[in-house]
């Protein structure tokens, strides 16, 4: 059985796997960016009540491997609270929590380290507070956080594979199942790699475009 025969025979399974992977990734990205962004802004504004606790949780999370956190949420936590939650939601929840605190850290640090002199300069040039945020702070902050944010989101996409360990039918688990039937690891896992490239390359392209648009090198030449 060659590569095309495998894809032809198992295309529905592959599509299901891709769709589950994409669903998890999209949910994790959206939740992480919006909730993490808001948490970061609040953390910068209310340093003691929100900033410090958020930083502490982020610190603790950074010391726990994502897979251990996912397993803990899916097995011991559900056992402790006597609930049964589908692996898909456990994966989305675990990765969203990690992503939220990663994004919050990036946003909070960018806000706290924002050079005050640009705000003063804009203020004395007659810009309103709203204009200062939209035309000066936001582009500079995006420039600062964009590289880190994109790396974090690509890591999140790759981390969706951990869902396979708690029986989520995402693309990696589907590929393993197909491989166990046809026993053609080179073809199956090459197909998996190609699928990831197809998903990742457009994101990398958008990332590159955004980076070019917003992160012009501002250091002195």
């Amino acid at each position, binding site marked *: 059985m060659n590569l095309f025969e495998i894809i032809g025979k198992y295309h529905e399974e592959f599509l299901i796997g891709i769709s589950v992977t994409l669903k998890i990734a999209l949910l994790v990205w959206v939740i992480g960016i919006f909730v993490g962004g808001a948490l970061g802004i609040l953390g910068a504004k209310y340093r003691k009540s929100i900033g410090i606790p958020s930083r502490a949780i982020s610190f603790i999370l950074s010391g726990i491997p994502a897979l251990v956190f996912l397993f803990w949420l899916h097995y011991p936590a559900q056992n402790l609270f006597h609930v049964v939650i589908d692996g898909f939601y456990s994966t989305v929840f675990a990765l969203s929590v990690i992503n939220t605190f990663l994004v919050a850290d990036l946003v909070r640090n960018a806000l706290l380290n924002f050079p005050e*002199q*640009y705000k*003063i*300069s*804009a*203020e*004395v*040039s*007659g*810009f309103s507070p709203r204009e200062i945020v939209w*035309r*000066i702070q936001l*582009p*500079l902050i995006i*420039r600062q956080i964009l590289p880190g944010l994109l790396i974090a989101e690509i890591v999140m996409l790759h981390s969706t594979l951990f869902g396979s360990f708690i029986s989520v039918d995402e693309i990696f688990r589907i590929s393993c199942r197909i491989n166990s039937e046809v026993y053609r690891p080179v073809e199956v896992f090459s197909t998996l790699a190609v699928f990831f490239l197809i998903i990742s390359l457009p994101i990398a392209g958008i990332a590159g475009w955004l980076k070019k648009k*917003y992160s*012009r*090198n*501002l*250091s*002195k*030449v």
Partner: protein
Amino acid sequence: MIEIKNINVELGINSTKKLILKNNSLKLDKGTITVLTGPSGSGKSTLLKTISLLIHPTSGEVMIDELSYSFPISEEIKLRDHFRINNGRQKMGIVFQDLHLIPHWTNYQNIVYPLKEMSSEQKHKLDFFIDLFQMNYFIHHYPNESSRGEEQRVALVRALMLNPEYLLLDEITSALDPEQTVNILKYCNSIKALGIGILIITHYIPFARKAADQVLFLDNGIIIEKGTNEILSNPKTERLSSFINSLRYIVGIED
């Protein structure tokens, strides 16, 4: 007229608190040039930021034409006075020592974006400045692609385009060649004639001698000598005399 009375400025928090300006008073009239000089760390930039209400004094009074601000301001009044402070600040064009050009805008955008919409009169004015300060070859560069002297000219034109009633310039000639310094001197004299009050912070005594109607010498947070530019030739205090002598030793100033 801008007037400050008995201004004290304390900066820092808790154990690092330090009294930077001590009981200073001064007047800046429209249509005059005031030069503020003094050793590094004497509080010159802090005084400029206090006059422009970017730093709120610990105590004292700042008057900008008909607007008067007494300090300390309570938190409650601070909020209410936010708009009044903006009104006072909008009368001033400020060029900071560090210039603070917005890094993701070109030099041209740094000048025109604060104008919102540019009238044909402003367009002519900008063209005039671009010619006067020889900015044609770098006007569309980004600040990081420009030299310090080029950035200084951009920051100056940005302030001038806002039609200020007062112009506060912090070390505006520090990176300029003699020709550009002469251009700025000439231009300061011509805008002075239009009734704009100018405060210039500089260590460049020959510039101060040529430009100043009033000279203030600040040392250790206190204005210890003030007068016409004559005080730069015949200082009354030992401290100003030694300051000028040390500059004379380094750069050689004509008597």
